[in-house]
């Protein structure tokens, strides 16, 4: 016997309303803009998919997207291994554990625009500690406001400084959950440290690493505040990442149509890559 009870819908309703107001309605507004042209006064003209086509064909968008992928790729390839290495070398028990954890968590507690401002001052030639040290003590020519390469190095180092901790903390959580018996068995089986890492630690960290990579991908792909404060997208357009470019189009030029289309493309790419990655990583478990 199955009793049909439709009352449950009423309990879900408040959540639906909440989601509608803070997610569905704003997104639909963006969708609305992306297929129309407006000259103000609430007058709209149907545009179809023209904005999408225009954005996808534009060199400016392709360049920004390329920079965005390069940035995300570089920080992932540095932060993930570095985070694992730091987590592996952290103590597992004793009085240093809380000290390490607090030190690790500190960078993440700093507001993003403060991070940008800090690194901006830190790297200024002549007055910034790092800028002065590099230019006047070591004699390395370094000015991230003039040199695109220096600007790239700076935003990457800044992101690594800010976010590697997240990977460290997640990996560490995975590592301490491994029972001692695994290490003891590996010792008795005569496994080398590399094999312990490859066959015990890495598999046990897989779930948390999947989460770490996903979070770092999404965050870095959507990054705005820190590079905006630090370089403002310059010198030239060299560090203009997708979100910075998007804000320039939307709020600088007030081209709402193209900006809306670009937002949706941006969103779709983030979603697609995250989904692909997650599906690939969890594929074996589902067997």
């Amino acid at each position, binding site marked *: 016997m199955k009793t049909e009870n439709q009352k449950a819908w009423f309990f879900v309703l408040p959540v639906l309303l909440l989601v509608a107001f803070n997610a569905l309605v704003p997104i639909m507004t963006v969708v609305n803009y992306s297929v129309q042209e407006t000259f103000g006064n609430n007058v709209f003209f149907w545009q179809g998919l023209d904005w999408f086509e225009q954005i996808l064909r534009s060199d400016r968008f392709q360049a920004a997207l390329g920079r965005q992928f390069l940035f995300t790729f570089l920080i992932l390839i540095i932060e993930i291994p570095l985070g694992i290495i730091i987590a592996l070398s952290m103590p597992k028990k004793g009085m240093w554990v809380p000290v390490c954890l607090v030190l690790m968590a500190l960078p993440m507690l700093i507001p993003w625009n403060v991070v940008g401002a800090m690194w901006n001052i830190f790297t200024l030639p002549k007055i910034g500690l790092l800028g002065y040290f590099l230019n006047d003590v070591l004699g390395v020519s370094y000015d991230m406001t003039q040199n695109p390469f220096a600007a790239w190095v700076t935003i990457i180092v800044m992101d690594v400084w800010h976010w590697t901790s997240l990977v460290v903390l997640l990996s560490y959580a995975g590592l301490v959950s491994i029972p001692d018996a695994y290490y003891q068995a590996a010792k008795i*089986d005569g496994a080398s440290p590399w094999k312990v890492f490859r066959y015990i630690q890495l598999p046990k960290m897989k779930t948390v690493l999947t989460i770490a990579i996903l979070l770092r991908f999404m965050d870095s792909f959507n990054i705005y505040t820190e590079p905006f404060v630090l370089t403002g997208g310059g010198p030239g357009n060299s560090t203009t990442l997708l979100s910075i470019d998007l804000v320039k189009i939307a709020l600088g030029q007030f081209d709402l149509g193209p900006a809306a289309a670009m937002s949706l493309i941006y969103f779709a790419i983030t979603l697609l890559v995250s989904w692909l990655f997650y599906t690939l990583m969890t594929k074996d478990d589902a067997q």
Partner: protein
Amino acid sequence: MAKITLSNLRHSYMPNPTGPADYALKEIDLDWQDGGAYALLGPSGCGKSTLLNIISGLLTPSEGRILFDDRDVTDLPPDQRNIAQVFQFPVIYDTMTVRNNLAFPLRNRGVDEGRIARRVAEIAKMLEVEEMLDIRASHLSPDNKQKISMGRGLVRDDVNVVMFDEPLTVIDPHLKWKLRSKLKELHQRVRATMIYVTHDQTEALTFADQVVVMQDGEIVQIGTPVELFERPQHTFVGHFIGSPGMNVLPAEESGGAVSFQGNRITLEGAVTGQGGTTQVGIRPEFVSLAHSGLPARVSKVSDVGRHAVVEAVVGDTPVKAIVEGELPEQGAEVHLAFRPDHTRLYRDGWLSTENEGSART
């Protein structure tokens, strides 16, 4: 394979132990004969896992030496001692297949692939896991995972000793007896020394030829299951082994005569030693209801199937008896008889009567 000797072994987890209370293991002297099946039995926290980890080399003892066939291995790491250990929770390498799990200890030692394939096939056959060889180990059920962790120990033919640290903890009850008999069978085939740590007397008594009973970091008795049952050297052994455990009754001693609640008790033999706290120990199996003897009042009768456990109060002390056949009513006045050849005196916990040529039971 080898004989294992532990000499003057002591271990403390503290850096500067002061008194005996700081030691997890107090003075252990023990020989494990080559090819024996041993059980280390004791309650949680008695030091049995510590002792096991010292033998396997996961722990270095504070004092004392460990010899494998007269070779001192005290300072050798686990992988150089040629031992195998099976843990409480199955340890398997999740990402490998069953086959690679079994081959792992051999590959790490650089054994050639042909030989590895042969050994893995042999062990898989012995453990009856042949059809699982190409499955990923993470997909196995807990009992099969535990079989694989045993297999990784047995696959090497140079092992001196295989140690089991409460290996059946996570196994479903109906599979426990299966694995236990498998273990016994493996011991007969492999003929390696095996040490089985457990707090479950049934597991210990069914697996082992020799049982080592531990309490508070000390060995209280070593013997065959029959010896432990028949003649416990310590009240702890009497109490810990058997269901229900031995009756341990307060006793007064005066001039070689022992009495319990004012009743003179006949013991198995002459009393040795003097002073200390004395107790009479007798197993419920050897207490019977009789027409004459110690007057008692029945306080509880529990029928456990094959027989019943009758608890009767003598004075103010309850005494358990195993009774077959007709059962008394609760509250009935009865008389208890103790079988003299199984009635012993314990002084400060330790056996204190001589066994006067009565090996009979």
